[in-house]
């Protein structure tokens, strides 16, 4: 089972690791520690239960089990598991949310959601929201 995990996620950021900056990788990253900054990949990102991610992410697929703040863009799908705590704007072709996940922010999901985004644009269409600030509300 551990071998399968390693094949899918060759890069692992451990429980006691704290990373600040920009990260790119090819296949997959399993985040168990803390990450702050920016992630850009065509591969998969898995944010495990105990992990904390504060970043703008552009990836092929994103699975969230832990705590995430920032804007997420996935060309394929975003999965918010039962234990997920997410705040930010998300854009993906497909979204899967398990009952119990807590999140707030703008959601744009559908086959056209990612296609319509101009190439090389910031993760959130329009003005990117600075990290650590709550998303703008439509209504009071």
């Amino acid at each position, binding site marked *: 089972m551990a071998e399968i995990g390693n094949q899918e996620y060759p890069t692992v950021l451990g429980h006691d690791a704290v990373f600040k900056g920009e990260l790119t990788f090819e296949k997959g990253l399993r985040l168990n520690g803390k990450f702050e900054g920016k992630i850009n990949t065509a591969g998969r990102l898995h944010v495990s239960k105990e992990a904390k991610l504060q970043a703008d992410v552009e990836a092929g697929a994103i699975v969230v089990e832990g705590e995430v703040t920032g804007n997420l863009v996935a060309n394929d799908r975003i999965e918010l598991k039962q234990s997920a705590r997410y705040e930010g704007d998300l854009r993906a072709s*497909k979204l*899967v949310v398990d009952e119990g996940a*807590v999140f707030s922010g703008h959601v744009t999901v559908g086959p056209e959601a990612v296609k319509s985004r101009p190439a090389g644009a910031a993760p959130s269409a329009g003005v990117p929201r600075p990290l650590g600030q709550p998303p703008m*509300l439509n209504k009071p």
Partner: protein
Amino acid sequence: MRPGRTVRVSVQVFMSVTPSLAGVPDDRITIVCLYCHKPQEVGRKTLTLTCKFCSKPLKLQDVRFTAYEARRVIETLGVVTVEKKGNVVADRITTGGGLVVRGRVKGNILSFGVVRVGPEAEIKGDITAPSIAVGAGAILEGYYKVGPDAAPEPAGSTTS
């Protein structure tokens, strides 16, 4: 002599049922007002009532949409279901029992129960709910506030 037996049987049945009725009677349910959020007991078969605290009219029945329907407001303490061929356009959908969407919905949703979104559903509008489940393939657009603390505070002086 003959009625003696009958009486004995009916007494036994009554005694076995009584303990389970000690708490909330079977024919009563507790509902929470959509506006003032105060609980009150009503008959199980009640379809509509007026909140005894804020005097707002409340509907209890489940609502099911199987075709196109445009309404200003949809409000019920029951479950709102939009079936595959359902297409609902509303300014506001407020539900106490939850929402199940398999078709299309355009409008802002406030649910006090779980929102279940099928893989072929399409929702355009903001959603506020304590919990949501989304199947892969659904088309969504709007501002989402999901979590146990997502429900708004009771608006005592609000008029609709």
